[in-house]
């Protein structure tokens, strides 16, 4: 009946190092519905049933990249496993490296430019950044898919970061 037992498959609680039975675990247990909905949102963003023009491998590799841009190495390692599970190799796997800018591939270059800008400095995003995605061949639905992926990760990474701080000062 221990209300502070968290599901073992909860990536956020695991990567934040939440101590079982502690105060942070108890607070999280009070928001178990939100943790569950966050796991559903992660599945919808990373491994959707209909991935459209953004494959599971590309999504996982972008997640590694975005975690690295946030300097959240544990989360980057978690998503690297997802890259491997998706069987991504070559240019797709290369998306994980923030130093790779999509050289020689218009579509990848546009994807990465958007992902990097909106991860690091969303305040600087302008209408032209969406136009560049469309010019590189992304349809409206794929623009939204990419935006949701980048945006969801910004949320998930900050929840992990916040919980780590909570745990460290508990």
């Amino acid at each position, binding site marked *: 009946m221990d209300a502070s037992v968290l599901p073992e498959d909860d990536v956020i609680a695991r990567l934040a190092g939440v101590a079982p039975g502690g*105060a*942070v675990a*108890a*607070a*999280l247990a*009070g*928001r178990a*519905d*939100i943790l569950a*909905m*966050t796991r*559903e*949102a992660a*599945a*919808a*963003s990373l491994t*959707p*049933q*209909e991935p*459209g023009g953004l494959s599971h491998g590309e999504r996982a590799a972008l997640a590694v990249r975005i975690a690295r*841009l*946030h*300097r*959240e190495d544990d989360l980057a390692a978690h998503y690297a496993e997802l890259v491997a599970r998706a069987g991504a190799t070559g240019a797709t796997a290369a998306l994980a490296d923030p130093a790779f800018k999509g050289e020689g591939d218009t579509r990848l270059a546009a994807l990465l430019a*958007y992902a990097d800008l*909106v*991860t*690091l*400095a*969303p*305040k600087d*995003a302008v*209408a032209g*950044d*969406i*136009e560049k995605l469309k010019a590189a061949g992304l349809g*409206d*639905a794929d*623009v*939204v*898919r990419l*935006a*949701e992926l*980048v*945006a*969801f990760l*910004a*949320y*998930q*990474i*900050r*929840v992990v*970061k*916040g*919980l780590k*701080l*909570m745990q*460290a*000062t*508990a």
Partner: protein
Amino acid sequence: MSGTLHAFTTEVPHWQPRVKPIDLAQASPAQLDALKVTPSNTKVSDYVLVLANDVETLKARTPLFNAIMYNRGGLGRAERELGAVGASVVNRCIYCAAVHASRYNQLTKTQETMQRVFAEGEAAALEPREAAIFRFASKLSKTPSAADGDDMRALRAAGLTDAEILDLILSAALFGWANRLMHTLGDPVAKEGEG
């Protein structure tokens, strides 16, 4: 877009999409389900119709958003809005800041806090509890996050419980998500007859 707003305001602007909203008349059953469209509820904003382009994420996101901002217990409603505003100021999402600053003002029946936030930005001088909340939310919103142990200890010193701190983390993080959609997929423009 000539009428695009660039300054913070508590007057909620119009949101002009940069991506095509789905056509409700041609929406799939999955889209109608995610949009919660029923014969008695057919009003859906352009923003949500844009997000319906990615129906799986929209379906997961809507209940999550509502739970984080409106679930019972924990952090008060106004302080969750303050967390949302902290993120929106860092990310300069004019539309999000307007919606959530105006909600904060309605809930607290004050205007001074938001006037200071909009005038002074992340350095706004606020009352101690508000200051600890706003500072944590804005620092968590940087990339990489700049929040540290001192910011967390300031929340505890201001009297926030673990349950309240968790809700603040969630509301500020949620707007890391919402700002990146709202601010990149459309423009805030003055409503007709205003500004």
